C-alpha cells in the first residue's frame, strides 16, 4: 500500500485547517463540548515564531506559553518551511483557492504563474520593517507584526468576521448576534488576500507574509531540502506546474521560498530526479533570501524611524485618547502596545461582546487592539468575569483572578481594578435635564456599595401651577385642563399653599386625585394656587467607587449618545491617569 507524501501533506493541511476552525468555534465561555472547556484555542498563536520573537524583542522575555514556537523554530531549522506547506491555516486557504482558480488552466500557463518573481523579496522587507519597529524597547518599540502575521490575521478574520456572519443564521455559537466594529476592514483585507490567489497562487504567502519570510531565513541551513539528485533533467519544467512556493525547482532552487509541498517531486516524470535530501541540489541552490543590501538597510531604517514618527501625536502622553478603554487586567498602555498582537481572541471570548477592535482614532497603533464599547453587546463588563485575560496569548491583558479584579482577599489593599470612570452628561440625563424620573443607572450599578447615588429634588412641572376650583374628599378640582393620567406614575406630588406636599395618585382632565390616606388640608379654598411637582432622584457618580464597568452606560435609556458615559480617566493600570489622589 502506497502512501504518497503529497497525500499526507494534504491531509495535514486539512487537519490543521479544521483544527483551527474548530478552535475558533469553541472559543465561547462554557463547559459544553462545543464551548471552551479546556480546548487549547491559542495553540496556533503559540506556535507562531513571529509572535514569540517579536514579543521577545519588545519585552525581553519569552512568555511561557510561547515556548511552543521554539519547537517550530527547531523543526524549521532542520527541515525547512514545513509550517507554511503543512500547518498554516491561512496558507492552506490560499493554496486551495489558488488550486480552484487555476486548475482549468493549461500546463504552460500554470508554469508561468509559478515562476519566481523578484517581488517575492517584499515579504522580507516587511519582516525587517516590523522587527526593527520592535527592536529597541528602551527607546521606543511597538508590536505591529500582528497586522500582517498570518496567524493573528486569519484568527481575526475568522473570529470577528466569518463566524459572526455565518452564525447569524444558525445561532450555534452564540445565542445573540455578535457585533464587531470596523469588521468591514478586516473583511476587505481578508477578501483581497483570498481573491489575489486567482491572480497568482499563494499570493500572500509569496509576496507579503512576514512569517513566511521568517521561516525562509530560519530555514537557510535546513539539513534536508528539495533538490535534484541526478543529472537527468531535460528542462521540461513540469515540476513547476504546481509549485506552491514559487521557488523554481527546475533550476537553481531557492530554498528560502520552498514550502515543502512536494508537488515538484510528484509531478516530475523522471524517477529519483527530485528528492528531499541532506545534500545540496545538483542543479545548484540559492539559500539566501533575495534581499539586497540597500533594501535591507531601507527597511531597517524605516522600521526604526517609524516608531517615533507614528508617535508624534503624543497619544501615549498627555494627548491620550480618553475613549480608549482597555479590558480589565490590561497592562499600562506603552507596555500593552508591546504585547498586543491584535489576534482578537479577547474580543471573541468576551461574553457580553463589548471588547471591540479599535480603529486609528487615538493613534495608528490602536488599530485592532481591544477597546471597550459599552453600547454594543449585551451588558457592560460583567462584575464576575475575567475571561478576556485568560485567552490573551501574550499577556497584553494579564490573566487576573477574580479576587484581583474585585479587590478582595490578597488584593484588598490595592482595591478593585478600575477601567475608567463614569461621567454624567447632565444635558442628556432625564432627571437632570428633562424633569423625567429615571434611575436605571443606579439600579444597575453592580458594585456594592453602589457607585451611583442619588439626591432627591422636587421640581415644578411645566404648566404645573394650578388654581383650585373645588376640594372634595380626596380630589382637588382645578380650573386648568390636564392630560388625564399624566401624574399617575407615583412620582408626582402636589404642593399645597401651606407648604405641605401630598402624593398624587391619579388625575383626570380637570382634577387631581389623592389616596384615601392623604389628608388634604381643610382650609384649601377655591382660588388657591397649588403646584404639581415631580420628584426626581438626580444621580451622581461616586468616583471613589466607580470601576468603569459600563453597565450604567449600557442600560441608560437615552439611546445613541448615552447620558452617562465611561471615560478611561481614573483607570488603575496607569499611574498618570489618576483622577483622585490615592489615600494611603
Amino acid at each position, binding site marked *: 500500500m502506497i502512501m504518497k507524501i503529497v497525500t499526507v501533506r494534504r491531509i495535514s493541511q486539512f487537519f490543521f485547517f479544521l483544527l483551527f476552525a474548530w478552535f475558533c468555534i469553541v472559543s465561547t465561555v462554557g463547559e459544553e463540548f462545543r464551548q471552551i472547556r479546556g480546548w487549547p484555542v491559542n495553540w496556533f498563536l503559540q506556535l507562531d515564531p513571529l509572535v514569540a520573537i517579536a514579543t*521577545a524583542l519588545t*519585552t*525581553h*522575555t*519569552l*512568555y*511561557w506559553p510561547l*515556548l511552543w514556537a*521554539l519547537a517550530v*523554530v*527547531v523543526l524549521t*531549522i*532542520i527541515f525547512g518551511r514545513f509550517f507554511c506547506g503543512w500547518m498554516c491555516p491561512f496558507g492552506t486557504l490560499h493554496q486551495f483557492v489558488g488550486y480552484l482558480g487555476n486548475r482549468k488552466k493549461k500546463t504552460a500557463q500554470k508554469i508561468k504563474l509559478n515562476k519566481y518573481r523578484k517581488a517575492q523579496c517584499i515579504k522580507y522587507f516587511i519582516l525587517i520593517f516590523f522587527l526593527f519597529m520592535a527592536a529597541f524597547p528602551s527607546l521606543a518599540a511597538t508590536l505591529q507584526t500582528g497586522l500582517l502575521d498570518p496567524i493573528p490575521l486569519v484568527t481575526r478574520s475568522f473570529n470577528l468576521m466569518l463566524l459572526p456572519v455565518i452564525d447569524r443564521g444558525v445561532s450555534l455559537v452564540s445565542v445573540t448576534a455578535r457585533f464587531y466594529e470596523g469588521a468591514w476592514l478586516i473583511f476587505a483585507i481578508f477578501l483581497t488576500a483570498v481573491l489575489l490567489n486567482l491572480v497568482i497562487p499563494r499570493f500572500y504567502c509569496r509576496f507579503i507574509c512576514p512569517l513566511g519570510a521568517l521561516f525562509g531565513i*530560519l530555514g537557510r*541551513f*535546513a*539539513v534536508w531540502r528539495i533538490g535534484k539528485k541526478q543529472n537527468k533533467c531535460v528542462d521540461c519544467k513540469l515540476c513547476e506546474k504546481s509549485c506552491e512556493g514559487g521557488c523554481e525547482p527546475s533550476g537553481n532552487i531557492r530554498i528560502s521560498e520552498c514550502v515543502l509541498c512536494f508537488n515538484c517531486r510528484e509531478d516530475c516524470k523522471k524517477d529519483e530526479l527530485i528528492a528531499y535530501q*541532506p*545534500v*545540496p541540489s545538483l542543479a545548484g541552490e540559492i539559500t539566501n533570501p533575495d534581499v539586497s543590501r540597500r533594501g535591507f538597510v531601507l527597511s531597517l531604517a524605516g522600521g526604526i524611524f517609524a516608531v517615533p514618527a507614528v508617535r508624534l501625536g503624543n497619544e501615549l502622553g498627555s494627548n491620550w485618547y480618553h475613549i480608549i478603554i482597555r479590558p480589565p487586567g490590561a*497592562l*499600562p498602555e506603552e*507596555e500593552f502596545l508591546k*504585547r498586543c498582537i491584535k489576534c482578537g481572541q479577547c474580543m471573541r471570548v468576551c461574553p457580553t461582546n463589548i471588547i471591540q477592535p479599535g480603529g486609528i482614532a487615538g493613534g495608528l497603533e490602536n488599530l485592532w487592539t481591544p477597546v471597550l464599547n459599552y453600547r454594543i453587546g449585551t451588558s457592560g463588563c460583567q462584575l464576575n468575569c475575567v475571561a478576556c485575560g485568560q485567552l490573551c496569548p501574550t*499577556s497584553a491583558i*494579564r*490573566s487576573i483572578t477574580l479576587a484581583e479584579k474585585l479587590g478582595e482577599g490578597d488584593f484588598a489593599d490595592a482595591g478593585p481594578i478600575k477601567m475608567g470612570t463614569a461621567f454624567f452628561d447632565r444635558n442628556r440625563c432625564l432627571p437632570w435635564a428633562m424633569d423625567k424620573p429615571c434611575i436605571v443607572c443606579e439600579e444597575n450599578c453592580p458594585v456594592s456599595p453602589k457607585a451611583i447615588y442619588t439626591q432627591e429634588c422636587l421640581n415644578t412641572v411645566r404648566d404645573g401651577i394650578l388654581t383650585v376650583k373645588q376640594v372634595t374628599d380626596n380630589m382637588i378640582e382645578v380650573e386648568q385642563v390636564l392630560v388625564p393620567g399624566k401624574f399617575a406614575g407615583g412620582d408626582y406630588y402636589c404642593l399645597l399653599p401651606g407648604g405641605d406636599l401630598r402624593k398624587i395618585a391619579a388625575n383626570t382632565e380637570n382634577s387631581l386625585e389623592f389616596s384615601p390616606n392623604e389628608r388634604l388640608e381643610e382650609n384649601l379654598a377655591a382660588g388657591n394656587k397649588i403646584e404639581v411637582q415631580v420628584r426626581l432622584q438626580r444621580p451622581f457618580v461616586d468616583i471613589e467607587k466607580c470601576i468603569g464597568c459600563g453597565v450604567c452606560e449600557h442600560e441608560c435609556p437615552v439611546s445613541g449618545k448615552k447620558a452617562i458615559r465611561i471615560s478611561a480617566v481614573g483607570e488603575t*493600570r496607569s*499611574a*498618570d491617569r*489618576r483622577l*483622585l*489622589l*490615592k*489615600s*494611603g
Partner: protein
Amino acid sequence: MTGQNDKKYERRQFLGRVGKAGISIAAAGLISYKLYDRQGPNTGADAESLVTLPDFSIPEKPGQAMSIVKGAERKTTVNKAIELLGGIERFVKPGETVAIKPNVAFASSPMLGATANPELVAEVVRLCYKAGARQVIVTDNPINDPASCFTLSGIGRAAGQAGAKVILPKDSLFRYTTLEGGMLIRNWPVFFGPFEKADKLIGISPIKDHARAGASMSIKNWYGLLGGRRNVFHQDINTIIAELSMMVRPTLVILDGTEVMVTNGPTGGSVSDLRRANTLIASCDMIAADACGCGLLDLKVSDLPYLSIAEKAGAGTTDYESLKPILATAG
C-alpha cells in the same frame, strides 16, 4: 576515485549543514532559556528601577545652622549670610559637583519676583567655583515651557555667564521613586538626572504668597522635582509639601526675602505685588527657614499646616529660634 571524493564532499557538506543547524538550534534554545518568563508581566513600574534622591546634607554645627542678613544688595547679603555659617568652604569642597535648584517655575521677568533672582543665582555659582567646585549645574523642571522660563527669567543667561551648566528637563532624566513613609509620592516620576552625580545641592527661592498653599518658600521650591501630572497633588497640598521636605535633603537653602511677593502669588504679575523686606535667610534646615520667612508675609507657622506636618515627620524644626540664627546687616 572521483566517486569517493564526491561522497566525501557530500558528507562534509552534510556535516557542515548539520553543524550549522545544530548551532542555530542551540542558539535558539539558549535565547529561549534566557528570556523564559514563567510569571508574565506585572502592572506598574519595576521595583528595581525605583530611585532615591541622595542625601546632600552636611554635618550639623550648632550655632551655624541659620543666618539672617539684612541688606538691599543680594550679592552682599548672600556673601555675608554664607560667611556667617562657616563660609562657602564648609559647604563645597574642591572637585565636587554642585547642583543648584533655583525657582524657575514661570516664564516671568525677574523684576516681578516670581522666580529666583538671576544675580543671586549667579553669585552663588561664582562662590561655588571659588570654593573649587569641579562643576556647577543650574537646573529646574518649570511649570511653563522650560526654555522660555530659563530665558525670560534671566537665570539661564546669568548662570551661564557665571560658568554654570544649565540643564533643561527631558524625559530621559526622569526616574520613578517612592518615598519611604510617603502616601502621595509613590511610584512617581521625579527629575533625577542632574542630581544623580551631584555631591551637593543648594536651593534658591524667593518668598512668595501662594493661593493654595499659603506661601511658597524653600520647601515648595522642590515641587519642581516632581514630574508626571503633578497637579493632581494640589488636592492635598500640605501633605505633598511635607513629603517634599522628607524626600529632598539639601546642603543649604537660600531664602531670598529682599523683595517679597505679598499678594497674587505665586505668579504675581505686577511690581506692586512686591514689598521690599531686604532680608536674606541661609539655612541648613529648610523648615526653620520657612518658619522664619513666613513672618515676612505676615503669616504665622500655624497658617502653614505643612510646616507642622513636616516637623512631625522629623524633617526639621519650626522653632527656628532654637537654632540660634545669626543676625547681621550687610550693605
